[in-house]
């Protein structure tokens, strides 16, 4: 499929990169010649110089045969105009990044629907949602829900004293008899492994499991992942993202403290937030934060506009006893720093936006998607439709693409965590875990064009 990405900023770069890895023809439109040549050198895409808001440029990029149009420049108006132009060329799917409007926007006057754009994405919404998901589940790295929330995809860090250390996957399979789960992936030193029978779990790994939501507490206990309910949180930085995160947790009855050094920001927060406490202090003011209980916080989220300060603040929070610390960084390269620094997770607005776009792109027969550890793998839900050759066969007799694993089969009545004897039927929903390079093969396996 031909994909046009307007804007070669970080969001554009990551989106284009992912789509090209998955085998799409990607054309990037960018007005800045230097950025364009940079992106052409680094990833396998074609560049077209010019503004996305000009029809001539879009024609040159091949908009007439385009199947997916993504406008993610830094300027809202350019993105909207580009998508409106693409609409005139009958591009089936158009996505615009608009900071002034979000999917949660309640203003009915101008909606994505009225503009005839399939998806409008607000980077702030995307990153706030990511932070909320990670912060809400203590010790878990990633949590995503599938099959209407009946299946969970969770990631946990393996500590040195964890009983899983040194255990092979086939030994783990025996454990799964009582409370079934599938270990879909292990990330080790930045690489993602789809584990097979003889692979072992090691200290420092991150393991990713698919399991029934009802079994989650039991499995977590069985595998020795400690669990504390998040009760207290501290949000460092009271900008748009900080406000959204604080608002979300305040509504969920958590004790939230928001810290910001700016007078006007604090006033606005005190006005808009209900039960959350607002402190006027620098986010690295250890004395104040300690006396306000940063050491008792279950999670500290550093989301100010200054990424270096965010990293420092998260480190100081951990040092002073916070159970977990997340921080917001702008430079995508910093995201991978988190584990080596001892910060629990770094979140980047641009990556979050790119991920949200990719999730959207994969809908259709694919029902939902979650991304693991900065794009290294994805969990995708497929619908088994029509006369597929594998229907009625046991999983162990099928040749499933490498780099992918079937996690669970969901029907209307039941959920089956996959084992070798599992059989798929028409109408089943299948939760699959795959690395990006295998996604095209998996899509082909399920007959998705």
């Amino acid at each position: 499929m031909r994909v046009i990405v307007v804007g070669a900023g970080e969001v554009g770069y990551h989106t284009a990169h992912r789509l090209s890895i998955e085998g799409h023809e990607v054309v990037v439109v960018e007005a800045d010649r230097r950025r364009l040549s940079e992106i052409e050198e680094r990833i396998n895409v074609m560049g077209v110089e010019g503004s996305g808001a000009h029809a001539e440029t879009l024609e040159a990029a091949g908009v007439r045969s385009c199947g997916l149009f993504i406008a993610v420049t830094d300027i809202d108006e350019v993105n909207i105009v580009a998508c409106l132009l693409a609409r005139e060329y009958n591009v089936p799917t158009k996505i615009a990044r608009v900071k002034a409007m979000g999917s949660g926007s309640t203003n009915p006057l101008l909606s994505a629907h009225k503009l005839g754009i399939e998806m409008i994405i607000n980077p702030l919404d995307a990153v706030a949602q990511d932070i909320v998901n990670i912060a809400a589940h203590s010790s878990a790295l990633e949590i995503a829900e599938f099959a209407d929330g009946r299946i969970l995809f969770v990631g946990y860090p393996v500590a040195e004293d964890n009983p899983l250390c040194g255990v092979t996957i086939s030994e783990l399979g025996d454990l799964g008899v009582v409370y079934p789960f599938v270990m879909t992936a292990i990330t080790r030193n930045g690489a993602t492994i789809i584990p097979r029978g003889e692979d072992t779990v090691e200290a420092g790994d991150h393991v990713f499991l698919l399991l029934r939501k009802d079994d989650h507490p039991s499995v977590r206990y069985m595998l020795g992942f400690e669990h504390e309910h998040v009760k207290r949180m501290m949000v460092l930085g009271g900008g748009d993202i900080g406000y959204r995160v604080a608002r979300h947790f305040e509504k969920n009855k958590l004790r939230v403290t928001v810290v910001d050094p700016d007078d006007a920001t604090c006033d606005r927060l005190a006005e808009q937030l209900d039960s959350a406490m607002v402190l006027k202090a620098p986010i690295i003011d250890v004395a104040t934060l300690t006396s306000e209980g940063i050491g008792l916080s279950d999670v500290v989220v550093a989301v100010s506009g200054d990424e270096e300060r965010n990293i420092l603040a998260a480190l100081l929070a951990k040092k002073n006893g916070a159970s977990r610390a997340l921080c917001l960084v702008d430079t995508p390269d910093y995201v991978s720093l988190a584990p080596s620094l001892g910060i629990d997770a770094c979140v980047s607005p641009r990556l979050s936006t790119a991920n949200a776009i990719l999730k959207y792109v994969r809908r259709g027969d694919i029902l939902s998607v979650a991304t693991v550890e900065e794009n290294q793998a994805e969990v995708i839900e497929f619908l088994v439709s029509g006369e597929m050759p594998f229907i009625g066969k046991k999983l162990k007799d099928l040749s499933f693409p490498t780099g992918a694993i079937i996690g669970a089969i969901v029907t209307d009545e039941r959920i089956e965590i996959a084992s070798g004897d599992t059989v798929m039927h028409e109408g089943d929903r299948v939760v699959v875990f795959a690395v990006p390079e295998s996604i095209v093969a998996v899509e082909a396996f399920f007959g998705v064009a």
Partner: protein
Amino acid sequence: MNLKVTFKVLGALILFLSCAFLLPVPLGVVDADGTHWALLMAALVGALAGGTVLYVCGDAKPELGHREGFAVVTLGWALFGIVGALPYYFAEATPTFIDAVFESLSGFTTTGATILTDIEALPRSLHLWRALTHWMGGMGIIVLSLAILPMLGVGGMQLFKAEVPGPTTDRLSPRIQDTAKLLWGVYVGLTAVEIVLLMFGGMDWFDATCHAFATMATGGFSTKNASVAGFNSAYIDYVITLFMFLAGVNFALHYAWLAGKPLRMFKNEEFRWYTIIAVAATLILMIANWGTAYDTIGENFRYSIFQAVSILTTTGFGTADYELWPYLCQVLLVLLMFIGGSAGSTGGGAKVSRMVLIVKHATVQMWRLIHPRGVRRVKLDGRAVPEEVLQSILGFFALYLAVIGIASLVMGGLGVEPVTAVASVIASIGNIGPGLGGVGPTDNYAHLPQLGKVVLSFCMLMGRLEIFTVLALWYPGFWRR
């Protein structure tokens, strides 16, 4: 300060009041008690005075500023008190003119304190006039004039804000005249419903009208010496309790409810607190009265809730002599006198929202001691209250207490016994009526010294206009051009 336009508006108001004198005239004619001459005389005097002023100042530019607004409201209310006293004076219903002014101001300010020793001896036409002063003063005679007189349109918000009680004022409609009309519409509607309900309970049209006027205005003038107890009917007690409670609610909420948004009322924080206070006060009274004043739960409930709501809303009707109740009850009722009704209602007192905000403000001060770097705003209905509104509430309380202190001192100086001195001042500035001691629910204000009645009249005026409006006139430089 534009004196000419101030006088022009005052002239129009007096002229307007003179028309109101004509309403009870037919009743005087029917009863043939001679009061129609007194009322007609009063109308004539008022019309001449108002007409002359209006004629002399007729060419003034109709522009009302802040200061003109305050002057119009304060002087207007004082003049209503004086001109409204004329029917009592001409009919020789009161011993002195000061007594007549006290009775008239007590009516307009919806206080309900009386200097009449035998209320039932008053002619029916003057009873109706007494009830009318309540009813006009309840929603605000200036708000009424705004609704009717087009000349007050410019600068009307100044008048409106100065007269409608509460720390902030809701505007129901972009045009101030329309807001005034809506509020009066709701007021008239509720009054009509109460008249009908009271007549179902066996009252004749005259008693029903007088009591409905006094209830909806949270006034408290009754046509009986024993107040509402004179009817000795549980049904009437409960109907009046309900309407006293409704009159103490912000009329903007009544409007929302009638306009098909009933839930607005329960989302309103002041309304919730107002309800909680009323319920809690009733429960405490019932517990204290249990086995002491009343033996059956039905009686206990009926009398406890009536006195609690009557005092909280600053109506001042009585069905029981609470001076015979345990001391706990008496102290509680005095505390309720300070709270009063909701902002934007016809009730007096300091208003529930001011009390809620002052408590919240104090809580935030304590919180700041524990969290020195914390930032917290005082909120009402989930919205932050502007700092200047809080400042003005603090100022209001300071002045409210100062006025109570000074006026009580003066009353003591005039030889009034201490409990009566303090209670009469609290009952007057809160626009309640009955207090404790010599001005308790079964007593009246007739025995107080003449100068004391002047002081209390002044307190009633300050309570109704919420102090700032009245005191502003004494501020140095107010009258400067």
